[in-house]
């Protein structure tokens, strides 16, 4: 039951983040959905992934969004829309998904999402530092490249200099 509540909180906070016209509120609810995601990961047995999500997703990304919104001075979404048809398709798609989710959560047989998580398989270190070490070097390269890109874009005058 707790897992269902965590999943519902994840989806609900993401909905608020999407539909809110105030960008700061959207950023805060995006961080809240990150917290719900990390709780979901923990409940599913993915403890390390939950920790990374909590620190990077809920911490770093939220701060980046708030700083950027403050720097750009665009606290409100000024123009509402793509064409109405595009928004309507997206809206009804999301609404259908949400109603189906609510129905399946309230129907019988869905009180437990997974059984006991096999804890023996949940240690990520041998995979991350062993099998996927090449991917890890890719991630390091990506982080360095991102740092250089952000430093370039954030300098006075931006990328035009």
């Amino acid at each position: 039951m707790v897992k269902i509540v965590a999943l519902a909180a994840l989806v609900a906070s993401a909905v608020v983040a999407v539909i809110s016209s105030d960008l700061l509120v959207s950023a805060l609810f995006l961080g809240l959905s990150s917290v719900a995601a990390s709780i979901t990961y923990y409940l599913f047995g993915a403890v390390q992934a939950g920790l990374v999500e909590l620190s990077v997703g809920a911490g770093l990304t939220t701060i980046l969004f708030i700083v950027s919104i403050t720097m750009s001075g665009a606290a409100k979404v000024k123009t509402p829309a793509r064409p109405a048809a595009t928004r309507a398709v997206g809206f009804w798609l999301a609404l259908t998904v949400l109603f189906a989710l609510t129905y399946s959560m309230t129907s019988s047989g869905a009180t437990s999402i997974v059984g006991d998580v096999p804890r023996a398989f949940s240690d990520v270190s041998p995979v991350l530092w062993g099998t996927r070490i090449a991917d890890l070097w890719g991630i390091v390269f990506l982080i360095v490249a991102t740092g250089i890109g952000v430093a370039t874009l954030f300098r006075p005058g931006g990328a035009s200099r």
Partner: protein
Amino acid sequence: MTALLQVWVVEAFSVAGLIALGLFSSVGNKNTIKILMGISIMTRGCSLAFLVAGVHHANLAVAQSMIITIIVVDAAITALGLSMVVNIYRQYGSVETDKLKRLHG
């Protein structure tokens, strides 16, 4: 079997809901910050899909390593995208995609 179907439905619709929400936010908005938020929500749905697959196939370690990779890549995309947004604001005075017409023919 019925219980298994219900379990699958709950997880599948959570994943699909997050991806649909992110898609809706990315496609339906002209504000670049909202578009980046949509991308972030979509990657969260993908992370949840990896988690559910890892749990059902009893291979949570690989799923966790993939999720960590996704989170790091998402943070890198967000950081770079937001610095581009700030740069766009400095150049154009707005973060709406409508204003970015310098390369129009």
